[in-house]
């Protein structure tokens, strides 16, 4: 009986041991499985098999490209305007800064200049051209053509000057045409474009402060060109000859232009208020001489 009990007890303990051993073996296998999963090489293999590894590389590349593009965008927010765009902007900034001095914020006389000047430009084959005319209520500045935005010229003209000379719509348009040619020849742009603008235009100031002396310098150049420097004899000669060549085909317009220059010349002689004009635009009497047919010596 005791023996039977001993055998039974031995069998039960053997079974317990077996179960425990099997249990512990299963537990290990599970851990091993987990270890295998954690094993990077195996993950890599699984990922490669599923094509996920390639997708990660593509995603990484995409993120990198996005980062580069975002950085580019951030940097572009810190850009100086391109040279031409900068001058168009500066023209408006100059007009705003000199608003009180130029007195352009007032009700304008209706000269019908939009239609008449447009017709004149088209008559001479200037298509797809934009212009802005700003009439100012001061004799301190008679006229100037400034660079505007793309394909555009800003023509500034004094109303007191128009009134004093009692200019007709046609005569005003001829003055504007002369200024348009002056602008097309690029004298003003050349004069106000500094080395600094050529260097900085279109570049980025990312990570630093913008160089505001660029604006100050350009404003100074505008004022200098408009009020002090003006145009040279050579430049005036070229403009006058250009007017001559365009108007020659239309004697009526040519005569109007010739008479207009005479009118201005006589007016300036007796009006000291406009003495600065001759310095800036030399000079109506010379222009008349350049236009006059050469006298033949027999």
């Amino acid at each position, binding site marked *: 009986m005791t023996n039977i009990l001993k055998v039974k007890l031995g069998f039960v303990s053997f079974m317990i041991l077996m179960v425990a051993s099997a249990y512990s073996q299963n537990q290990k296998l599970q851990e091993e499985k987990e270890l295998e999963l954690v094993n990077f090489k195996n993950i890599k293999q699984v990922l490669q098999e599923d094509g996920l590894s390639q997708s990660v590389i593509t995603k990484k590349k995409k993120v990198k490209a996005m980062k580069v593009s975002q950085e580019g965008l951030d940097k572009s927010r810190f850009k100086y305007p391109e040279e031409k765009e900068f001058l168009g902007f500066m023209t408006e900034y100059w007009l705003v800064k000199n608003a009180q001095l130029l007195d352009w914020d007032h009700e304008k006389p209706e000269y019908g200049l939009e239609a008449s000047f447009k017709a004149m*430009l088209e008559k001479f084959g200037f298509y797809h051209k934009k212009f802005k005319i*700003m009439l100012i209520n001061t004799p301190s500045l008679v006229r100037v053509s400034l660079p505007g935005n793309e394909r555009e010229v800003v023509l500034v003209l004094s109303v007191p000057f128009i009134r004093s000379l009692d200019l007709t719509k046609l005569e005003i348009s001829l003055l504007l045409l002369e200024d348009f040619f002056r602008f097309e020849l690029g004298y003003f742009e050349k004069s106000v474009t500094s080395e600094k603008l050529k260097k900085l235009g279109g570049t980025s100031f990312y990570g630093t402060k913008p160089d505001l002396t660029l604006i100050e310098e350009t404003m100074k150049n505008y004022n200098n060109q408009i009020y002090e420097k003006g145009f040279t004899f050579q430049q005036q000669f070229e403009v006058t000859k250009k007017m001559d060549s365009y108007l020659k085909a239309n004697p009526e317009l040519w005569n109007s232009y010739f008479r207009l220059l005479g009118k201005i010349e006589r007016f300036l002689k007796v009006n000291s208020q406009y003495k600065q004009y001759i310095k800036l635009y030399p000079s109506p009497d010379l222009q008349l001489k350049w236009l006059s047919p050469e006298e033949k010596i027999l």
Partner: protein
Amino acid sequence: MWIYLLILSSLSLAATKSTDEKLVGVFYFNPIFGHVHQSSLKTSPSLTTIQCSYPVKVIESSKVSAGPEWAYVQVADYKGFILRQYLSEKRPDCFQGRYPKFFDSLNLDLAELYYWGRLYDQYTQGETRVR
């Protein structure tokens, strides 16, 4: 019955509103700065100053005649007039959008903002035809 009355009253309200003021659409302001005018005159006082790309509600009203050149608009709480030539259906590519940090560095004061807006009222603008 109640639902019928409710629908009827809301319809009549909508009809009254539509005859009075109707939204034509949302347009965007083009120039760098500009003004919403009190009346359809370039020299009329400014109600508020807006800048390029600002969304503007163009409205129509039987009581307001804006004329062909002007649009009757609502900007925030202001109702006034803007020249049609300065409004576009698409969001414009503005200078201050292209060069925001450069533009900010100018630190324009209120007077300058005002005059910049007035500039576009005072220009006589034209463009020759394309050949």
